[in-house]
């Protein structure tokens, strides 16, 4: 984290102050006043206060009814989206609608089933494995996460024209990146989150530009905004847990501290031949994927590569292409990639 960060945010504030306030006028003024009136209780102990904020964030990510627009930036790529999140006696539901490019929309229901609708097609995806966002789990996993990241309270800020509180999450070693999140003072909702590389430069960001609490579930919430021509298309759910590590002889001998196997999938291989093993390792915040598929005579992907904001490491083990991908420093994908071993039954490597 460098000194440049507060300055960067100041620049953002200056921008919003000059543009947003002037152009959104009295609407924003009213929201601002409301946000300022409802300040959270602040405990004296910073650790307790952080836990309070994370609890609040977790609660808001599951229980709030809100509507907002945000910009999602990943490297040089940027897109804007609208989100409507509702939670009532029928459970938690969410709609994400793209605001630029071709129409895309995802509707997630309370069971975690996601319906993806574009202007050309529609499909239903079993998204239960990843439906519960990390936000909702972060506070309960805090003890574990804190071994690898230091949490600290930043100053007050403003995002989506609301008063916000900054929480800095700084890695304790060089195997992971840091985060900076801005939480709504009133509700704890996440208004901005940045993934920061080792130099404190944001790699991936979600920045809310509007955020509005809803009194009731909007009537249109049950209807997708775009309709595909093939509404019954359905994908097979990823067979999670199909192959446990070791079952098929693949082992990760050495991973950076804290990275534990969280998921194990088996996907059809990209080019139609056989299957691809996909293991997801996480330290609670960062995720690294390990893909293993049979080499098909194509040029193997070897060594370190950068793909967007992610780093990748490729190697060949036992006639298989092994590729490690993650939004983590190079050293992490490299260490994991180099430690992939194939151990056939009987113990021979």
């Amino acid at each position, binding site marked *: 984290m460098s000194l440049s960060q507060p300055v*960067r945010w100041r620049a953002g504030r200056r921008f919003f102050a000059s543009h947003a306030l002037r152009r959104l006028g009295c609407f924003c003024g009213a929201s601002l006043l409301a946000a300022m009136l409802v300040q959270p209780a602040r405990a004296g102990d910073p650790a307790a206060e952080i836990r309070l904020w994370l609890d609040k964030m977790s609660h808001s990510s599951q229980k709030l009814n809100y509507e907002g627009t945000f910009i999602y930036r990943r490297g040089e790529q940027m897109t804007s989206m609208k989100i409507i999140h509702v939670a009532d006696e029928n459970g938690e539901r969410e709609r994400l609608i793209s605001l630029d490019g071709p129409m895309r929309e995802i509707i997630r229901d309370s069971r975690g089933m*996601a319906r993806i609708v574009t202007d050309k097609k529609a499909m239903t995806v079993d998204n239960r494995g990843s439906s519960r966002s990390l936000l909702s789990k972060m506070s309960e996993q805090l003890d574990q996460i804190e071994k690898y990241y230091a949490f600290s309270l930043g100053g007050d800020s403003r995002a989506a024209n609301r008063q916000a509180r900054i929480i800095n999450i700084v890695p304790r070693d060089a195997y992971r990146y840091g985060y900076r999140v801005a939480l709504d003072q009133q509700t704890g909702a996440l208004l901005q989150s940045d*993934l920061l590389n080792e130099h404190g430069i944001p790699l991936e960001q979600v920045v809310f530009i509007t955020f509005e609490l809803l009194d009731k579930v909007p009537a249109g919430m049950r209807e997708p905004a775009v309709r595909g021509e093939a509404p019954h298309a359905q*994908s097979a759910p990823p067979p999670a847990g199909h192959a446990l590590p070791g079952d098929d002889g693949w082992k990760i001998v050495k991973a950076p501290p804290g990275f534990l196997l969280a998921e194990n999938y088996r996907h*059809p291989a990209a080019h139609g031949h056989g299957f691809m093993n996909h293991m997801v390792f996480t330290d609670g915040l960062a995720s690294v994927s390990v893909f293993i598929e049979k080499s098909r005579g194509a040029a193997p992907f070897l060594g370190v590569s950068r793909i967007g904001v992610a780093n990748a490491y490729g190697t060949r083990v036992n006639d298989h292409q092994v590729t490690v991908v*993650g939004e983590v420093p190079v050293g992490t994908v490299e260490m994991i990639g180099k430690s992939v071993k194939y151990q056939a039954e009987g113990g021979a490597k």
Partner: protein
Amino acid sequence: MTEKFNEKISAFMDGDLTAHEARQVIEEMKRSPVSRVCWGRYHLIGDALKNNLPSTIQHDLAARISQVIEAEPVLPITFAPRKKTTVISSFFKPLAGLAVAASVAAVAVVSFDMGGASSTAQVQTMAAAPPPVLAVNHPPAALVAAPLVVDEAEAQSRLENYLVNHSQYSTSVVVQPAVRMVGYAPNE
């Protein structure tokens, strides 16, 4: 330095700079691609705030056009006298740029249709669409003098597939997988 400059860009957009400062900002933006991206981003945010977003935003269009122009072979006007060559070159350069821009647009339309046509109902298909940023790094093959190495292209496509799978199945503090799925949807 950059942050301060970004503030200046913001002020420039507000019309808060003196003529001299404004000139400095323009000169700096000519030099620095980073500040041009910032300029574009601020405008996009401004448009989003005003609910004034068009249906399609090609925030990197200028960069893509520049990239393709860079890859263009030099116009073969070697027979002309030296001075005249310079004049013609500098005159034709923007036109060449326009033609290339049109080609880029055509390529964009073609890939859009291809993406739409391959609508097999499978998550993998959806996920396999390459993130646009990667497409940007590869000028359309037909417009580049050197042919793409097939193996590299295949390795790239495989990497992209891995990345999309990774994004879809891993959680993140910054975004939930669904956001990445919408962000990475096909046809980009």
